[in-house]
Protein backbone atom coordinates (compact mmCIF):
# COMPACT_ATOMS: atom_id res chain seq x y z
CA UNK A 1 0.00 0.00 0.00
CA UNK A 2 1.48 3.28 -1.04
CA UNK A 3 0.82 6.58 0.52
CA UNK A 4 -1.33 8.66 -1.72
CA UNK A 5 0.37 11.83 -2.76
CA UNK A 6 -1.15 14.96 -4.14
CA UNK A 7 0.28 16.00 -7.42
CA UNK A 8 -0.12 19.65 -8.26
CA UNK A 9 -0.78 20.02 -11.98
CA UNK A 10 2.46 20.53 -13.85
CA UNK A 11 1.02 23.67 -15.36
CA UNK A 12 -2.38 25.28 -15.05
CA UNK A 13 -4.91 24.01 -17.56
CA UNK A 14 -6.39 26.51 -20.02
CA UNK A 15 -7.70 29.37 -17.89
CA UNK A 16 -10.97 28.21 -16.40
CA UNK A 17 -12.32 31.71 -15.80
CA UNK A 18 -13.96 33.69 -18.54
CA UNK A 19 -11.92 36.83 -19.27
CA UNK A 20 -14.79 39.29 -19.02
CA UNK A 21 -12.56 42.39 -19.06
CA UNK A 22 -11.24 41.30 -22.43
CA UNK A 23 -14.72 40.58 -23.77
CA UNK A 24 -15.95 44.01 -22.62
CA UNK A 25 -13.35 45.67 -24.84
CA UNK A 26 -15.14 44.13 -27.82
CA UNK A 27 -18.33 46.08 -27.00
CA UNK A 28 -17.61 49.84 -27.21
CA UNK A 29 -21.11 50.80 -26.01
CA UNK A 30 -20.30 49.45 -22.56
CA UNK A 31 -18.05 52.48 -22.01
CA UNK A 32 -21.04 54.85 -22.28
CA UNK A 33 -22.10 56.90 -19.29
CA UNK A 34 -25.75 57.43 -18.38
CA UNK A 35 -26.81 60.29 -16.09
CA UNK A 36 -23.14 60.67 -15.21
CA UNK A 37 -22.85 57.04 -14.08
CA UNK A 38 -21.13 54.07 -15.69
CA UNK A 39 -23.64 52.19 -17.82
CA UNK A 40 -24.67 48.82 -16.41
CA UNK A 41 -26.53 47.25 -19.30
CA UNK A 42 -28.79 44.59 -17.80
CA UNK A 43 -31.43 44.53 -20.54
CA UNK A 44 -29.96 41.80 -22.71
CA UNK A 45 -33.28 39.96 -22.75
CA UNK A 46 -34.73 42.84 -24.78
CA UNK A 47 -31.71 43.19 -27.03
CA UNK A 48 -28.04 42.45 -26.54
CA UNK A 49 -25.21 44.76 -27.57
CA UNK A 50 -23.04 44.15 -30.63
CA UNK A 51 -19.30 43.55 -30.61
CA UNK A 52 -17.16 45.67 -32.90
CA UNK A 53 -16.60 42.74 -35.30
CA UNK A 54 -20.32 42.53 -36.04
CA UNK A 55 -20.64 46.22 -36.85
CA UNK A 56 -17.44 46.09 -38.90
CA UNK A 57 -18.65 43.09 -40.89
CA UNK A 58 -21.87 44.94 -41.76
CA UNK A 59 -19.96 48.06 -42.70
CA UNK A 60 -17.35 46.18 -44.69
CA UNK A 61 -20.04 44.40 -46.65
CA UNK A 62 -21.94 47.63 -47.33
CA UNK A 63 -18.82 49.59 -48.28
CA UNK A 64 -17.15 46.99 -50.50
CA UNK A 65 -19.41 44.17 -51.57
CA UNK A 66 -23.04 45.12 -51.62
CA UNK A 67 -25.26 43.82 -54.41
CA UNK A 68 -28.52 41.90 -54.44
CA UNK A 69 -28.33 38.18 -53.75
CA UNK A 70 -29.40 35.20 -55.84
CA UNK A 71 -30.01 37.41 -58.85
CA UNK A 72 -26.96 38.73 -60.66
CA UNK A 73 -24.28 37.15 -62.80
CA UNK A 74 -21.92 39.98 -61.97
CA UNK A 75 -19.09 39.58 -59.51
CA UNK A 76 -20.45 41.65 -56.62
CA UNK A 77 -23.76 39.82 -56.68
CA UNK A 78 -21.91 36.51 -56.58
CA UNK A 79 -19.78 37.67 -53.66
CA UNK A 80 -22.85 38.92 -51.78
CA UNK A 81 -24.65 35.64 -52.48
CA UNK A 82 -21.70 33.64 -51.23
CA UNK A 83 -21.52 35.65 -48.00
CA UNK A 84 -25.27 35.43 -47.50
CA UNK A 85 -25.38 31.68 -48.06
CA UNK A 86 -22.35 31.11 -45.86
CA UNK A 87 -24.37 32.45 -42.93
CA UNK A 88 -27.00 29.80 -43.58
CA UNK A 89 -24.19 27.23 -43.33
CA UNK A 90 -23.00 28.81 -40.06
CA UNK A 91 -26.52 28.70 -38.66
CA UNK A 92 -26.92 25.08 -39.67
CA UNK A 93 -23.72 24.25 -37.80
CA UNK A 94 -24.70 26.40 -34.78
CA UNK A 95 -28.00 24.49 -34.49
CA UNK A 96 -26.55 21.10 -35.43
CA UNK A 97 -29.18 20.96 -38.15
CA UNK A 98 -29.03 17.86 -40.38
CA UNK A 99 -29.00 20.15 -43.43
CA UNK A 100 -28.28 23.89 -43.61
CA UNK A 101 -31.03 24.22 -46.24
CA UNK A 102 -33.51 23.59 -43.44
CA UNK A 103 -32.63 27.06 -42.12
CA UNK A 104 -34.82 29.90 -43.37
CA UNK A 105 -33.64 33.46 -42.89
CA UNK A 106 -36.42 35.68 -41.50
CA UNK A 107 -36.84 39.20 -40.17
CA UNK A 108 -36.67 37.87 -36.59
CA UNK A 109 -38.44 35.61 -34.12
CA UNK A 110 -41.80 37.32 -34.58
CA UNK A 111 -41.64 36.88 -38.34
CA UNK A 112 -40.50 33.28 -37.90
CA UNK A 113 -43.35 32.34 -35.58
CA UNK A 114 -45.84 34.02 -37.90
CA UNK A 115 -44.37 32.03 -40.79
CA UNK A 116 -44.77 28.71 -38.99
CA UNK A 117 -48.23 29.55 -37.63
CA UNK A 118 -49.52 30.75 -40.98
CA UNK A 119 -47.92 28.21 -43.27
CA UNK A 120 -47.65 25.00 -41.26
CA UNK A 121 -50.57 25.89 -38.98
CA UNK A 122 -53.08 26.61 -41.72
CA UNK A 123 -51.97 23.57 -43.69
CA UNK A 124 -52.57 21.03 -40.94
CA UNK A 125 -55.26 22.46 -38.64
CA UNK A 126 -58.92 21.48 -38.99
CA UNK A 127 -61.87 22.79 -36.96
CA UNK A 128 -61.66 21.45 -33.41
CA UNK A 129 -57.95 20.61 -33.64
CA UNK A 130 -55.91 21.88 -30.73
CA UNK A 131 -52.89 24.15 -30.45
CA UNK A 132 -51.18 23.83 -27.08
CA UNK A 133 -49.38 26.93 -25.81
CA UNK A 134 -48.04 27.75 -22.34
CA UNK A 135 -48.93 30.41 -19.82
CA UNK A 136 -45.40 31.85 -20.03
CA UNK A 137 -45.43 32.67 -23.74
CA UNK A 138 -44.43 36.02 -25.21
CA UNK A 139 -47.25 37.64 -27.19
CA UNK A 140 -45.27 36.71 -30.32
CA UNK A 141 -45.97 33.07 -29.60
CA UNK A 142 -49.64 33.65 -28.77
CA UNK A 143 -51.09 36.08 -31.28
CA UNK A 144 -49.90 34.32 -34.49
CA UNK A 145 -51.59 31.14 -33.23
CA UNK A 146 -54.77 33.03 -32.41
CA UNK A 147 -54.84 34.34 -35.97
CA UNK A 148 -54.35 30.81 -37.27
CA UNK A 149 -56.99 29.45 -34.87
CA UNK A 150 -59.49 32.03 -36.10
CA UNK A 151 -58.78 31.12 -39.71
CA UNK A 152 -58.96 27.34 -39.23
CA UNK A 153 -61.43 26.79 -36.39
CA UNK A 154 -58.69 25.28 -34.23
CA UNK A 155 -58.82 25.70 -30.45
CA UNK A 156 -56.05 27.05 -28.21
CA UNK A 157 -55.22 25.25 -24.95
CA UNK A 158 -52.69 26.41 -22.38
CA UNK A 159 -50.18 24.59 -20.15
CA UNK A 160 -50.31 26.40 -16.78
CA UNK A 161 -47.30 27.76 -14.90
CA UNK A 162 -46.73 26.51 -11.35
CA UNK A 163 -45.99 28.63 -8.27
CA UNK A 164 -42.32 27.80 -8.80
CA UNK A 165 -42.39 29.43 -12.23
CA UNK A 166 -42.09 26.17 -14.15
CA UNK A 167 -44.47 24.48 -16.57
CA UNK A 168 -47.04 22.19 -14.99
CA UNK A 169 -45.95 18.88 -16.46
CA UNK A 170 -48.78 17.00 -14.76
CA UNK A 171 -51.32 19.20 -16.50
CA UNK A 172 -49.43 18.59 -19.74
CA UNK A 173 -50.47 14.94 -19.61
CA UNK A 174 -54.17 15.88 -19.56
CA UNK A 175 -53.80 18.64 -22.12
CA UNK A 176 -52.14 16.48 -24.76
CA UNK A 177 -54.87 14.67 -26.69
CA UNK A 178 -55.15 13.05 -30.10
CA UNK A 179 -56.54 16.40 -31.26
CA UNK A 180 -53.34 18.24 -30.33
CA UNK A 181 -51.66 19.07 -33.63
CA UNK A 182 -49.17 21.70 -32.49
CA UNK A 183 -47.35 22.41 -29.24
CA UNK A 184 -45.73 25.86 -29.35
CA UNK A 185 -43.61 26.91 -26.41
CA UNK A 186 -40.66 28.97 -25.40
CA UNK A 187 -37.27 27.39 -24.70
CA UNK A 188 -36.50 30.02 -22.02
CA UNK A 189 -39.11 32.31 -20.46
CA UNK A 190 -38.39 35.94 -21.32
CA UNK A 191 -39.93 36.97 -17.98
CA UNK A 192 -38.71 34.31 -15.58
CA UNK A 193 -35.63 32.88 -17.27
CA UNK A 194 -37.02 29.38 -16.69
CA UNK A 195 -35.48 26.73 -18.95
CA UNK A 196 -38.24 24.42 -20.14
CA UNK A 197 -37.65 20.66 -20.42
CA UNK A 198 -37.97 20.62 -24.19
CA UNK A 199 -36.91 17.04 -24.79
CA UNK A 200 -39.50 15.69 -22.36
CA UNK A 201 -42.27 17.86 -23.78
CA UNK A 202 -41.29 17.05 -27.36
CA UNK A 203 -41.38 13.31 -26.63
CA UNK A 204 -44.81 13.59 -25.00
CA UNK A 205 -46.10 15.74 -27.86
CA UNK A 206 -44.79 13.39 -30.51
CA UNK A 207 -46.51 10.51 -28.75
CA UNK A 208 -49.87 12.07 -29.68
CA UNK A 209 -48.67 13.07 -33.15
CA UNK A 210 -48.21 16.78 -32.47
CA UNK A 211 -45.52 18.99 -33.97
CA UNK A 212 -43.35 21.02 -31.57
CA UNK A 213 -42.53 24.66 -32.33
CA UNK A 214 -39.95 26.34 -30.10
CA UNK A 215 -39.50 30.07 -29.52
CA UNK A 216 -35.76 30.22 -28.91
CA UNK A 217 -35.41 34.00 -28.72
CA UNK A 218 -34.18 34.02 -25.10
CA UNK A 219 -32.18 30.81 -25.32
CA UNK A 220 -29.70 30.97 -28.19
CA UNK A 221 -27.23 33.31 -26.46
CA UNK A 222 -27.24 31.36 -23.21
CA UNK A 223 -27.71 27.66 -23.94
CA UNK A 224 -26.33 25.19 -26.44
CA UNK A 225 -29.03 24.64 -29.05
CA UNK A 226 -28.85 21.27 -30.76
CA UNK A 227 -32.13 20.89 -32.60
CA UNK A 228 -31.64 17.17 -33.05
CA UNK A 229 -30.98 16.56 -29.36
CA UNK A 230 -33.86 18.84 -28.32
CA UNK A 231 -36.22 16.81 -30.47
CA UNK A 232 -38.29 19.75 -31.66
CA UNK A 233 -39.72 20.21 -35.16
CA UNK A 234 -39.27 23.98 -35.56
CA UNK A 235 -36.85 26.28 -33.76
CA UNK A 236 -37.15 30.05 -34.17
CA UNK A 237 -34.90 32.89 -32.93
CA UNK A 238 -33.46 36.38 -33.56
CA UNK A 239 -29.94 37.67 -34.14
CA UNK A 240 -30.30 40.75 -31.95
CA UNK A 241 -30.57 38.77 -28.73
CA UNK A 242 -27.34 36.92 -29.58
CA UNK A 243 -25.02 39.92 -30.14
CA UNK A 244 -26.09 40.34 -33.77
CA UNK A 245 -28.11 43.00 -35.64
CA UNK A 246 -31.82 43.71 -35.44
CA UNK A 247 -34.18 42.81 -38.26
CA UNK A 248 -32.90 39.29 -38.89
CA UNK A 249 -33.53 35.85 -37.45
CA UNK A 250 -34.21 32.30 -38.56
CA UNK A 251 -36.57 29.37 -38.62
CA UNK A 252 -35.14 25.90 -38.54
CA UNK A 253 -37.64 23.21 -39.50
CA UNK A 254 -37.59 19.53 -40.31
CA UNK A 255 -37.11 19.05 -44.02
CA UNK A 256 -40.25 16.97 -44.55
CA UNK A 257 -42.41 19.58 -42.84
CA UNK A 258 -40.86 22.51 -44.69
CA UNK A 259 -41.22 20.73 -48.04
CA UNK A 260 -44.93 20.26 -47.44
CA UNK A 261 -45.58 23.87 -46.42
CA UNK A 262 -47.10 26.43 -48.79
CA UNK A 263 -45.39 29.82 -49.18
CA UNK A 264 -46.08 32.43 -46.53
CA UNK A 265 -45.27 35.56 -48.50
CA UNK A 266 -45.08 35.80 -52.27
CA UNK A 267 -42.58 37.80 -54.25
CA UNK A 268 -39.24 37.75 -55.97
CA UNK A 269 -36.76 35.03 -55.14
CA UNK A 270 -39.33 32.45 -54.00
CA UNK A 271 -40.58 31.24 -57.38
CA UNK A 272 -39.54 28.85 -60.11
CA UNK A 273 -41.78 30.25 -62.82
CA UNK A 274 -44.61 32.74 -62.92
CA UNK A 275 -47.42 33.17 -65.42
CA UNK A 276 -50.70 34.93 -64.73
CA UNK A 277 -52.35 31.52 -64.69
CA UNK A 278 -49.98 29.66 -62.44
CA UNK A 279 -46.86 30.03 -60.35
CA UNK A 280 -44.56 27.27 -59.24
CA UNK A 281 -42.51 27.82 -56.16
CA UNK A 282 -38.84 27.50 -55.46
CA UNK A 283 -37.72 24.70 -53.15
CA UNK A 284 -36.92 25.26 -49.48
CA UNK A 285 -35.40 27.52 -48.20
CA UNK A 286 -35.87 30.04 -51.05
CA UNK A 287 -39.63 29.39 -51.03
CA UNK A 288 -39.82 31.19 -47.67
CA UNK A 289 -37.46 34.06 -48.44
CA UNK A 290 -39.50 36.32 -50.70
CA UNK A 291 -38.00 39.69 -51.54
CA UNK A 292 -34.56 41.13 -50.97
CA UNK A 293 -33.38 40.07 -47.52
CA UNK A 294 -31.55 42.34 -45.05
CA UNK A 295 -28.20 41.26 -46.48
CA UNK A 296 -25.90 43.44 -44.38
CA UNK A 297 -27.67 42.31 -41.22
CA UNK A 298 -27.37 38.69 -42.26
CA UNK A 299 -23.63 39.24 -42.80
CA UNK A 300 -23.50 40.81 -39.31
CA UNK A 301 -25.39 37.81 -37.94
CA UNK A 302 -22.71 35.57 -39.42
CA UNK A 303 -20.04 37.62 -37.65
CA UNK A 304 -21.95 37.30 -34.37
CA UNK A 305 -22.08 33.52 -34.74
CA UNK A 306 -18.35 33.51 -35.44
CA UNK A 307 -17.76 35.70 -32.37
CA UNK A 308 -19.78 33.36 -30.16
CA UNK A 309 -18.05 30.36 -31.69
CA UNK A 310 -14.68 31.87 -30.81
CA UNK A 311 -15.51 31.96 -27.10
CA UNK A 312 -15.23 29.04 -24.71
CA UNK A 313 -18.88 28.16 -24.29
CA UNK A 314 -18.30 26.44 -20.96
CA UNK A 315 -16.54 29.51 -19.57
CA UNK A 316 -19.27 31.86 -20.76
CA UNK A 317 -22.01 29.67 -19.30
CA UNK A 318 -20.18 29.42 -15.97
CA UNK A 319 -19.69 33.19 -15.90
CA UNK A 320 -23.36 33.90 -16.62
CA UNK A 321 -24.47 31.31 -14.08
CA UNK A 322 -22.27 32.98 -11.47
CA UNK A 323 -23.78 36.39 -12.24
CA UNK A 324 -27.31 35.05 -11.97
CA UNK A 325 -26.62 33.23 -8.71
CA UNK A 326 -24.82 36.24 -7.23
CA UNK A 327 -27.58 38.66 -8.26
CA UNK A 328 -30.32 36.38 -6.94
CA UNK A 329 -28.56 36.03 -3.60
CA UNK A 330 -27.93 39.78 -3.27
CA UNK A 331 -31.52 40.54 -4.18
CA UNK A 332 -32.92 38.13 -1.61
CA UNK A 333 -30.97 40.03 1.06
CA UNK A 334 -33.01 43.17 0.37
CA UNK A 335 -36.17 43.68 2.40
CA UNK A 336 -39.63 43.28 0.85
CA UNK A 337 -38.51 41.87 -2.48
CA UNK A 338 -40.36 39.21 -4.43
CA UNK A 339 -38.09 37.20 -6.72
CA UNK A 340 -39.86 35.11 -9.34
CA UNK A 341 -38.88 31.52 -10.15
CA UNK A 342 -35.93 31.88 -7.75
CA UNK A 343 -35.54 28.11 -7.38
CA UNK A 344 -36.26 27.11 -10.98
CA UNK A 345 -33.54 26.20 -13.47
CA UNK A 346 -32.92 29.55 -15.12
CA UNK A 347 -30.57 31.33 -17.49
CA UNK A 348 -29.79 35.04 -17.84
CA UNK A 349 -33.03 36.44 -16.42
CA UNK A 350 -33.89 37.70 -12.94
CA UNK A 351 -37.41 39.03 -12.48
CA UNK A 352 -38.59 40.69 -9.30
CA UNK A 353 -40.83 43.29 -7.70
CA UNK A 354 -40.40 45.53 -4.68
CA UNK A 355 -43.51 45.46 -2.47
CA UNK A 356 -45.63 48.57 -2.90
CA UNK A 357 -43.50 50.10 -5.64
CA UNK A 358 -44.52 50.02 -9.29
CA UNK A 359 -41.89 48.47 -11.61
CA UNK A 360 -41.80 51.61 -13.76
CA UNK A 361 -40.75 53.72 -10.80
CA UNK A 362 -38.03 51.19 -9.98
CA UNK A 363 -36.85 51.31 -13.60
CA UNK A 364 -36.62 55.10 -13.62
CA UNK A 365 -34.62 55.32 -10.40
CA UNK A 366 -32.29 52.56 -11.62
CA UNK A 367 -31.80 54.45 -14.89
CA UNK A 368 -30.62 57.43 -12.86
CA UNK A 369 -27.96 55.06 -11.48
CA UNK A 370 -26.89 54.09 -14.99
CA UNK A 371 -28.55 50.70 -14.62
CA UNK A 372 -30.62 49.62 -17.63
CA UNK A 373 -33.33 47.08 -16.85
CA UNK A 374 -36.73 46.37 -18.31
CA UNK A 375 -39.75 47.25 -16.20
CA UNK A 376 -43.02 46.19 -17.78
CA UNK A 377 -45.28 43.27 -18.61
CA UNK A 378 -42.55 42.04 -20.99
CA UNK A 379 -45.12 41.31 -23.73
CA UNK A 380 -46.39 38.45 -21.57
CA UNK A 381 -49.67 39.75 -20.14
CA UNK A 382 -51.15 36.29 -19.47
CA UNK A 383 -48.13 35.44 -17.31
CA UNK A 384 -48.47 38.78 -15.46
CA UNK A 385 -52.06 37.84 -14.63
CA UNK A 386 -50.87 34.43 -13.42
CA UNK A 387 -48.26 36.10 -11.18
CA UNK A 388 -50.80 38.70 -10.01
CA UNK A 389 -48.67 41.72 -10.86
CA UNK A 390 -49.00 44.54 -13.41
CA UNK A 391 -45.39 43.98 -14.40
CA UNK A 392 -41.99 43.05 -13.03
CA UNK A 393 -38.51 44.49 -13.03
CA UNK A 394 -36.25 42.31 -15.13
CA UNK A 395 -32.48 42.27 -15.04
CA UNK A 396 -31.10 40.08 -17.83
CA UNK A 397 -27.42 39.28 -18.16
CA UNK A 398 -25.12 38.82 -21.10
CA UNK A 399 -21.58 37.51 -21.39
CA UNK A 400 -20.05 40.97 -20.79
CA UNK A 401 -21.79 41.74 -17.50
CA UNK A 402 -19.91 41.78 -14.20
CA UNK A 403 -20.49 41.42 -10.48
CA UNK A 404 -19.77 45.16 -10.20
CA UNK A 405 -22.80 45.80 -12.37
CA UNK A 406 -24.90 43.57 -10.12
CA UNK A 407 -23.66 45.70 -7.20
CA UNK A 408 -24.77 48.84 -9.06
CA UNK A 409 -28.21 47.26 -9.47
CA UNK A 410 -28.44 46.47 -5.77
CA UNK A 411 -27.19 49.94 -4.82
CA UNK A 412 -29.86 51.45 -7.07
CA UNK A 413 -32.54 49.31 -5.45
CA UNK A 414 -31.48 50.55 -2.02
CA UNK A 415 -32.09 54.08 -3.22
CA UNK A 416 -35.48 53.07 -4.62
CA UNK A 417 -36.39 51.96 -1.11
CA UNK A 418 -35.05 55.18 0.33
CA UNK A 419 -37.14 57.31 -2.05
CA UNK A 420 -40.37 55.34 -1.73
CA UNK A 421 -40.03 54.09 1.82
Amino acid at each position, binding site marked *: MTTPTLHPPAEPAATPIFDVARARRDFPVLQERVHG*KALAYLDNGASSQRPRVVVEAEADYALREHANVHRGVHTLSQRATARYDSVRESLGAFLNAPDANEVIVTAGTTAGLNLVAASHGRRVLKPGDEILLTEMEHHSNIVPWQLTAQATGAVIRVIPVTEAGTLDLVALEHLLTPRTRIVALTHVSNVLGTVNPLRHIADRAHAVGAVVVVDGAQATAHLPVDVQALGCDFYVASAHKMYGPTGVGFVWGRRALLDAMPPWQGGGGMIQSVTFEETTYAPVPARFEAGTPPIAQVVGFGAALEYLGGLDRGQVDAHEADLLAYATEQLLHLPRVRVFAATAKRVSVLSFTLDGIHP*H*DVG*TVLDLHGVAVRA*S*HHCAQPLMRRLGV*PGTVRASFGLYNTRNEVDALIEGLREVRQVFG
Partner: protein
Amino acid sequence: MTDASELYQSLILDHNRAPRNFRVLEHADRRVEGYNPLCGDHFTLQLRLDGDRIGDVAFQGSGCAISKASVSLMTMAVKGKTIEEVDRMFDSFHRMIVGQGGPDADLPPKLAVFAGVREFPSRVKCASLAWHALKSAIHGEAVEPGAG
Protein backbone atom coordinates in the same frame (compact mmCIF):
# COMPACT_ATOMS: atom_id res chain seq x y z
CA MET B 1 -31.45 65.64 -13.75
CA THR B 2 -29.50 62.90 -12.01
CA ASP B 3 -31.24 62.76 -8.68
CA ALA B 4 -34.35 60.65 -8.16
CA SER B 5 -35.73 63.17 -5.66
CA GLU B 6 -35.98 65.80 -8.39
CA LEU B 7 -38.49 63.65 -10.24
CA TYR B 8 -40.09 62.04 -7.23
CA GLN B 9 -40.74 65.18 -5.21
CA SER B 10 -42.29 64.76 -1.79
CA LEU B 11 -45.68 65.98 -3.00
CA ILE B 12 -45.75 63.23 -5.64
CA LEU B 13 -44.68 60.59 -3.12
CA ASP B 14 -47.32 61.83 -0.70
CA HIS B 15 -50.12 61.56 -3.27
CA ASN B 16 -48.82 58.16 -4.36
CA ARG B 17 -49.02 56.88 -0.78
CA ALA B 18 -52.27 58.61 0.10
CA PRO B 19 -54.18 59.54 -3.05
CA ARG B 20 -56.95 62.13 -2.63
CA ASN B 21 -60.46 61.65 -4.02
CA PHE B 22 -59.68 57.94 -4.21
CA ARG B 23 -63.21 56.57 -3.92
CA VAL B 24 -66.37 55.67 -5.78
CA LEU B 25 -68.33 58.79 -6.69
CA GLU B 26 -72.06 58.58 -5.98
CA HIS B 27 -74.26 60.15 -8.65
CA ALA B 28 -71.50 60.42 -11.22
CA ASP B 29 -72.68 61.37 -14.69
CA ARG B 30 -69.40 60.73 -16.47
CA ARG B 31 -67.18 57.65 -16.17
CA VAL B 32 -64.11 56.82 -18.19
CA GLU B 33 -61.26 54.33 -18.04
CA GLY B 34 -57.70 55.53 -18.44
CA TYR B 35 -55.43 52.69 -19.49
CA ASN B 36 -51.80 52.65 -20.53
CA PRO B 37 -51.17 49.22 -22.06
CA LEU B 38 -47.42 49.81 -22.04
CA CYS B 39 -47.08 49.81 -18.27
CA GLY B 40 -50.47 48.62 -17.06
CA ASP B 41 -51.54 51.91 -15.42
CA HIS B 42 -55.31 51.58 -15.13
CA PHE B 43 -57.63 54.14 -13.57
CA THR B 44 -61.36 54.71 -13.54
CA LEU B 45 -62.26 58.39 -13.39
CA GLN B 46 -65.75 59.50 -12.40
CA LEU B 47 -67.18 62.98 -12.35
CA ARG B 48 -70.37 64.92 -11.90
CA LEU B 49 -70.93 68.07 -13.88
CA ASP B 50 -72.89 70.95 -12.35
CA GLY B 51 -73.73 72.99 -15.41
CA ASP B 52 -70.38 73.83 -16.96
CA ARG B 53 -68.45 73.19 -13.76
CA ILE B 54 -66.81 70.02 -12.36
CA GLY B 55 -69.12 69.44 -9.41
CA ASP B 56 -67.19 66.48 -8.06
CA VAL B 57 -64.55 64.08 -9.27
CA ALA B 58 -63.05 60.85 -7.93
CA PHE B 59 -60.97 57.93 -9.14
CA GLN B 60 -59.95 54.36 -8.45
CA GLY B 61 -57.36 52.02 -9.88
CA SER B 62 -53.64 51.44 -9.82
CA GLY B 63 -50.48 52.54 -11.53
CA CYS B 64 -47.00 53.90 -11.01
CA ALA B 65 -46.27 56.75 -8.60
CA ILE B 66 -46.26 59.38 -11.35
CA SER B 67 -49.59 58.32 -12.82
CA LYS B 68 -51.32 57.90 -9.48
CA ALA B 69 -50.09 61.20 -8.05
CA SER B 70 -51.07 62.88 -11.30
CA VAL B 71 -54.68 61.70 -11.09
CA SER B 72 -54.85 62.60 -7.41
CA LEU B 73 -53.47 66.12 -7.81
CA MET B 74 -55.59 66.66 -10.91
CA THR B 75 -58.81 65.81 -9.12
CA MET B 76 -57.96 68.40 -6.45
CA ALA B 77 -57.09 71.02 -9.06
CA VAL B 78 -60.17 70.71 -11.25
CA LYS B 79 -62.93 70.37 -8.67
CA GLY B 80 -65.22 73.41 -8.93
CA LYS B 81 -63.52 74.69 -12.10
CA THR B 82 -65.36 75.41 -15.36
CA ILE B 83 -64.82 73.22 -18.38
CA GLU B 84 -63.10 76.12 -20.11
CA GLU B 85 -60.67 76.52 -17.19
CA VAL B 86 -59.99 72.77 -17.19
CA ASP B 87 -59.28 72.82 -20.93
CA ARG B 88 -56.73 75.58 -20.40
CA MET B 89 -55.16 73.61 -17.53
CA PHE B 90 -54.91 70.57 -19.80
CA ASP B 91 -53.07 72.54 -22.47
CA SER B 92 -50.76 74.18 -19.94
CA PHE B 93 -49.98 70.86 -18.21
CA HIS B 94 -49.30 69.21 -21.56
CA ARG B 95 -46.94 72.00 -22.66
CA MET B 96 -45.04 71.70 -19.38
CA ILE B 97 -44.50 67.93 -19.39
CA VAL B 98 -43.42 67.75 -23.03
CA GLY B 99 -40.99 70.62 -22.46
CA GLN B 100 -42.72 73.25 -24.58
CA GLY B 101 -42.98 75.80 -21.80
CA GLY B 102 -42.64 76.22 -18.08
CA PRO B 103 -45.64 76.03 -15.81
CA ASP B 104 -47.71 79.13 -16.58
CA ALA B 105 -50.54 81.09 -15.00
CA ASP B 106 -53.21 78.64 -16.25
CA LEU B 107 -51.74 75.87 -14.11
CA PRO B 108 -52.35 75.60 -10.35
CA PRO B 109 -48.89 75.93 -8.73
CA LYS B 110 -48.94 72.46 -7.15
CA LEU B 111 -49.04 70.80 -10.57
CA ALA B 112 -45.60 72.23 -11.32
CA VAL B 113 -44.18 69.23 -9.40
CA PHE B 114 -44.58 67.28 -12.63
CA ALA B 115 -42.23 69.57 -14.57
CA GLY B 116 -39.39 67.06 -14.01
CA VAL B 117 -41.21 64.48 -16.14
CA ARG B 118 -40.04 66.30 -19.28
CA GLU B 119 -36.57 64.80 -18.66
CA PHE B 120 -38.06 61.30 -18.90
CA PRO B 121 -39.80 60.88 -22.26
CA SER B 122 -40.87 57.35 -21.34
CA ARG B 123 -42.78 58.71 -18.35
CA VAL B 124 -44.68 61.56 -20.01
CA LYS B 125 -47.60 59.24 -20.71
CA CYS B 126 -47.78 58.31 -17.03
CA ALA B 127 -48.30 61.96 -16.06
CA SER B 128 -50.72 62.74 -18.89
CA LEU B 129 -52.95 59.66 -18.57
CA ALA B 130 -55.22 61.32 -16.01
CA TRP B 131 -55.68 64.43 -18.08
CA HIS B 132 -56.54 62.57 -21.25
CA ALA B 133 -59.08 60.54 -19.29
CA LEU B 134 -60.58 63.72 -17.85
CA LYS B 135 -60.83 65.35 -21.24
CA SER B 136 -62.62 62.39 -22.76
CA ALA B 137 -64.91 62.17 -19.72
CA ILE B 138 -65.91 65.83 -20.01
CA HIS B 139 -66.38 65.82 -23.74
CA GLY B 140 -67.74 62.29 -24.00
CA GLU B 141 -71.21 60.88 -23.57
CA ALA B 142 -73.06 61.26 -20.29
CA VAL B 143 -73.81 58.06 -18.41
CA GLU B 144 -76.88 57.38 -16.28
CA PRO B 145 -76.34 59.20 -12.97
CA GLY B 146 -75.30 56.72 -10.32
CA ALA B 147 -74.47 54.06 -12.90
CA GLY B 148 -70.83 54.88 -12.16
